[in-house]
């Protein structure tokens, strides 16, 4: 079972709280930025390096997947192609009222045909989380 790994959950983990071992967490690099950026104030470089390493190590854990975002993900996540081949930007992407983090996460996490484990429910959880 997949679930969205939101910044609040990341904070809990960084505070040493245990998360449900039966869940598979999916997040994006936008969540990593948000967590590390909000934590960096008041931290020395050595402390920040430790925090950064902790966040990166999450990805090595069997229960976590942090989606990075490059050219391939941009092309697959930002655009929709209609039946006549017409190209449009995804409506969720052009919604400037939502935060930049939302857009990073939406594009990174938008289900893609070539990622077999992906789940539309994960995306809905992320949208719900940002809408709350």
């Amino acid at each position, binding site marked *: 079972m997949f679930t969205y790994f939101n910044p609040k959950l990341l904070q809990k983990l960084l505070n040493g709280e245990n998360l449900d071992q039966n869940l598979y967490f999916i997040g994006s*690099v936008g969540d*990593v930025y948000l967590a590390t950026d909000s934590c*960096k104030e008041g931290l020395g470089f050595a402390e920040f390096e430790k925090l950064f390493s902790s*966040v990166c190590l999450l990805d090595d854990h069997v229960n976590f997947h942090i989606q990075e975002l*490059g050219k391939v993900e941009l*092309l697959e996540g930002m*655009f929709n192609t209609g039946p006549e081949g017409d190209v449009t930007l995804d409506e969720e992407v052009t919604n400037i009222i939502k935060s930049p983090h939302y857009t990073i996460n939406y594009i990174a996490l938008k289900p893609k045909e070539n990622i077999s484990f992906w789940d539309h429910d994960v995306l809905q959880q992320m949208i719900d989380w940002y809408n709350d």
Partner: protein
Amino acid sequence: MINDLVFDTHILSEFIWQYFTNDLRGNGLLARSNIITDERQKAINDIILEYNNEGTFSKGLIITSAFSVIEIARKFDIIAFQKFTSSQFKIFLEELPEYFHIAPLEKALSFHLHKVPKVVYDGSTQKPIELPDAIHCATYFSRDSATLITNDARIKRIENINCL
């Protein structure tokens, strides 16, 4: 000496526009505009010319963050209005020139974000550096040697960033 040029969102938007209107896809060069100053034009065209003539990148590459692309998409009607279409936007990304690199939003960039100050000072007034601008700065810091091309007054106040 290799020196990469890092574009922020507005410079990227101008580049995409000229990519189609000035045939940068072929052998065209960037023209001067209200955003492209003489200095910027020379620095960017030096990279394009070297690639067009020699197929090499000894002067450096043009870099922009994946976040700049996201910013244009988010505010497409404002930023790209009457400049380029969503189809052209997609074509540009698909056929990126070899001298142009989109730096991914990856975990390692978070390390460079720490080098960006939370605030800058305009006289005695404190002004925050928002995360989106910090991402451009972190992309700059991720390069060995670079110049950040931006009009952002706050970024220009960051001491250890070489801006053009």
